[in-house]
């Protein structure tokens, strides 16, 4: 037996060739070994054993062929699905470009557009749709961006030359604060989507990200640079030209929810968390009770999600789809997404204790299934006792006053 396994064939032999002739399939060498004859210096295989081996070999080949066929079918199905997806993206691009975008004001709220929107905006029109949906309440022009950027550059220069005081509306902030904030921007840029390798020193978008964040600190010295902003700016840069990205960035941060968080207005943040908990209890009462029992408060996971608009915690393609609907539905969709995540993982979370829940939610699994994810979000009702998100929030703000 031992020799049979290790022995190597000295001459090509007919049984193997016969089998090969019958099959258009090349078996793996190890499966073929069983057919080899014993070396010449050993007695030949008994006919019975040779027959048995041939049979075993043929069975193996049949199995292997079956597997191959199955895989081929799977590949074909995947290809078909991809073609279908690409077709539907292609169609969507046409619809967005030819029908929706030219008639934005009248069409953006129609049922048909809202449904198409939910499916995800095709990457080629995504930036345009985001810009339109975010709007430009602040009336920022490209010229204003250039002015802010020029001022930022001036500051960087003066600080690097030894830091003469720069006068202006931000005089209330010490030079040390400003320098710390500029240093932090530099540090954080290198830590923004590090795996993409495009925002890091030497990467193609390093300077763009630096410029937008710098310009913003000059545009809004009262807010300044806050961690989390670099992720938002980076996602916008991936979808828009620099000045348009700056306009969208500034307007996005000017929304009430983003202002509350980026100003780190703790009281107002707690109000948002309280509103979130109202819908949490309504949608997922069992998990809500489990979290209460284990002292898992919403700030633990929501802060990262809200500050970065999920771009740090979700895979980028999913995060962009969340942004799509966030642009459509506003802040309430951020909290709906959070509930969707909790719903998707409700079963595992219910079995975990405090530390495991906290670890899980601050570092979500990397292979989130995108369709299930959005189905889960869709199943979340943003209605509590006939009250919508905005009403619940308003009531809670009123209560706090």
């Amino acid at each position, binding site marked *: 037996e031992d020799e049979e396994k290790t022995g190597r064939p000295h001459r090509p032999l007919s049984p193997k060739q016969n089998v090969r002739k019958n099959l258009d399939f090349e078996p793996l060498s190890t499966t073929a070994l069983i057919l080899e004859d014993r070396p010449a210096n050993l007695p030949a295989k008994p006919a019975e054993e040779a027959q048995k081996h041939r049979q075993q070999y043929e069975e193996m080949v049949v199995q292997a062929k079956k597997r191959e066929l199955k895989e081929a079918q799977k590949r074909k199905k995947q290809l078909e699905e991809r073609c279908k997806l690409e077709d539907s993206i292609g169609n969507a691009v046409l619809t967005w470009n030819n029908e929706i975008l030219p008639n934005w004001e009248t069409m953006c709220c129609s049922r048909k557009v809202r449904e198409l929107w939910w499916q995800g905006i095709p990457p080629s029109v995504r930036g345009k749709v985001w810009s339109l949906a975010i709007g430009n309440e602040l009336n920022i022009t490209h010229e204003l961006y250039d002015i802010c950027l020029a001022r930022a550059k001036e500051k960087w220069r003066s600080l690097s030359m030894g830091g003469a005081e720069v006068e202006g509306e931000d005089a209330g902030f010490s030079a040390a604060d400003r320098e710390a904030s500029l240093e932090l921007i530099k*540090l954080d840029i290198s830590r923004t989507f590090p795996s993409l390798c495009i925002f890091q020193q030497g990467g193609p978008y390093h300077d763009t990200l630096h410029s937008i964040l710098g310009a913003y600190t000059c545009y809004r010295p009262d807010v300044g640079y806050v961690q989390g902003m670099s992720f938002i700016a980076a996602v916008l840069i991936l979808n828009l030209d620099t000045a348009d990205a700056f306009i969208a960035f500034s307007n996005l941060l000017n929304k009430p929810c983003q202002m509350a968080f980026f100003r780190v207005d703790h009281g107002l943040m707690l109000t948002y968390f309280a509103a979130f908990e109202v819908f949490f209890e309504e949608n997922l009462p069992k998990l809500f009770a489990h979290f209460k029992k284990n002292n898992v408060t919403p700030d633990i996971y929501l802060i990262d999600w809200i500050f970065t608009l999920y771009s740090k915690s979700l895979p980028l393609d999913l995060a962009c789809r969340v942004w799509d609907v966030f642009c459509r539905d506003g802040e309430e969709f951020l909290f709906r997404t959070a509930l969707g995540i909790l719903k998707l993982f409700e079963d595992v979370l219910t079995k975990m204790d405090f530390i495991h829940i906290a670890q899980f939610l601050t570092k979500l699994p990397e292979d989130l299934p995108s369709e299930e994810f959005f189905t889960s979000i869709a199943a979340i009702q943003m209605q509590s006792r006939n009250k919508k998100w905005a009403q619940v929030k308003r009531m809670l703000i009123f209560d706090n006053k």
Partner: protein
Amino acid sequence: SFQSSDFLFKFLVIGNAGTGKSCLLHQFIEKKFKDDSNHTIGVEFGSKIVNVGGKYVKLQIWDTAGQERFRSVTRSYYRGAAGALLVYDITSRETYNALTNWLTDARMLASQNIVIILCGNKKDLDADREVTFLEASRFAQENELMFLETSALTGENVEEAFVQCARKILNKIESGELDPERMGSGIQYGDAALRQLRSPRRAQAQSAQECGC
């Protein structure tokens, strides 16, 4: 893998942005350097069971955001912490100068008996050093802190920082200086200790329930 523990300690990792807090935690838990790390927004978590002089201690570690602006948020996480790693970067005097502020917060907001170990991180970057070992060690003595220089990159002194801090807390429990049963001590009995306290029959049911946690 399931390992029962005698105690559970809540630990904080605090200090300025970019000093390597999350990298220290990652090195401690995964035994490797995380070179594509993000910045922490809010708080992240880690946990690990360490053997300290024959006792198993589960560390529940809260790794906080470093930016000054987040201070009002991270302050709310101090309550009930038994130990803390206070981290600065030996190549940045600014992060060293901020230590007093961090220390005041920790002493005021965490448990009164909080055990703090000062970690001068990035020890591997000795050529760019801005803070000497001597002055930091003097600062530590004046403020009753333990002190180590660490490197999240090479792993030097990382495990030691966490374990020494845990050992000091255990010593305080044994000497009676710390009472684990006092509210807000940041200490809880682990499942192993709880089993000993309960009657054998209940203990069995309990251990079956707790498996896999």
